[in-house]
């Protein structure tokens, strides 16, 4: 019960402030206006268009990031030579605040879908990569020895020992990467977009429609929360065997 007290109080305060005229609608739309706008957008189909566009960008960008992180992370985690060759460069790139790439990406890729998906992928890549490398490094040598004693081939050792042992870390990295993907999606869509939840934000700003802005913010919150919960469920299902205190 306690968890609902603060949100409900905020909602009540918001409603009271806009109903009494204390806050003007061009500063902050009332809860009623926000709900009405949400329903309007849903009815006109614009909601599904924008939501669909954003979800698609996040999904594609995240998938690309996951793939790249799996390849590069396995290489760097599995081979000292690859580590020396690749890791310093990747750490260097990682040190750049990722949004600093935006101008270059826009120059190279224009303002189309490719640019947005690339930006999302850059954002999601590093958390997954870092988690995977440290996961591979952290595999218990004693378990690897068990595989060695039973004469496992290199491939079997990877498939039966290293992959399952690394999975918990990888999933944590993927969860953080997905959160990052949403963050970078906002940046990408704020810059240049004709649809998507970020477009709703800029559109609302340009037309001084705070109800539209708030609808976009609420949808972002819902999407972020949903994808995080989905990842946590996946973690529970796949790596519930870990003997650690769950955060």
């Amino acid at each position, binding site marked *: 019960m306690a968890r609902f007290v603060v949100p409900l109080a905020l909602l009540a305060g918001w409603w009271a402030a806009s109903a009494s005229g204390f806050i003007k609608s061009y500063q902050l739309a009332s809860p009623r206006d926000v709900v009405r706008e949400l329903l309007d957008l849903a009815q006109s189909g614009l909601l599904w268009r924008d939501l669909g566009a954003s979800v698609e960008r996040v999904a594609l960008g995240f998938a690309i990031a996951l793939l790249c992180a799996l390849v590069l992370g396995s290489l760097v985690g599995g081979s000292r030579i690859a580590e020396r060759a690749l890791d310093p460069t990747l750490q260097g790139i990682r040190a750049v605040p990722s949004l600093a790439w935006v101008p270059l990406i826009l120059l190279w890729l224009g303002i189309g879908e490719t640019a947005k998906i690339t930006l999302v992928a850059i954002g999601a890549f590093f958390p997954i990569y870092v988690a995977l490398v440290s996961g591979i490094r952290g595999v218990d040598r*004693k*378990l690897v*020895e*068990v595989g*060695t*004693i*039973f004469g496992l081939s290199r491939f079997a050792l990877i498939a*039966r*020992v290293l992959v*399952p*042992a690394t*999975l918990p870390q990888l999933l944590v990295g993927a969860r953080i990467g997905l959160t990052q993907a949403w963050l970078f999606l906002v940046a990408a869509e704020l810059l240049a977009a004709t649809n998507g939840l970020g477009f709703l934000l800029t559109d609302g700003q340009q037309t001084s429609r705070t109800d539209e802005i708030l609808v976009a913010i609420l949808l972002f919150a819902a999407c972020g929360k949903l994808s995080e919960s989905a990842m946590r469920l996946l973690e529970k299902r796949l*790596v519930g*065997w*870990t*003997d650690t205190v769950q955060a």
Partner: protein
Amino acid sequence: MSAARIRALRKAYGTHLVFDGLDLDVARGERVAILGASGCGKSTLLRCIAGLERSDAGTIATTGEIGVVFQEPRLFPWLDVERNVAFPARNDAERARVGNVLALVGLAHAAKRIPKELSGGMAQRAALARALVRDPALLLLDEPFAALDALRRIELRAAVREILEFTRASAILVTHDVDDALALADRVVVLAGSPAEIAFTGQVGETATRGAILDALGVVEVRSRPAPARSGRHGASYTS
């Protein structure tokens, strides 16, 4: 034919020479306990036989499958007990043994549990079952009871004893516990020195008595004496 035959084994870590020309034979069906001070090379010897360490010179010949039980259970945390035990199985015959070895170690009821749900003693039993799945001719036991409390230790020792009788496998038990050695082994070997050499070898029930082993280990056992009648520390009364 012997289960393990070690000749002129030489092993060094950097400049530290662990063995320099060690010979050891384990006969088929024989159970040998290796004792020695911490860091004398007992575990290194076992790791060389298991193929986890490369020897620098000399030969190690073993016949048949080798099973290893470590100080820690080393179960795969993502597999339940049954799958952990089935991990080394390569064919249907070995997979069919899983149920038998689980029953043998007394874990048939816990087959579906995962390692984090096991007590230390149960986990070590599962590790023992896993080592038995390939029907090894030689069992290498590296301080298998060291991580257990005194009562679990007695239980597991009895279980291992029964299993060794039942499977008739040869075994090399590395331990620092004289009682483990006397309870489980046919022969006791004491390693000492640096590089380590065999300082003592004797059959249990013949020359390998508790006293002789402790002697070879260089341990002086202090016999507890009856407490003095009048102790000055706590109980003494000045008025009586």
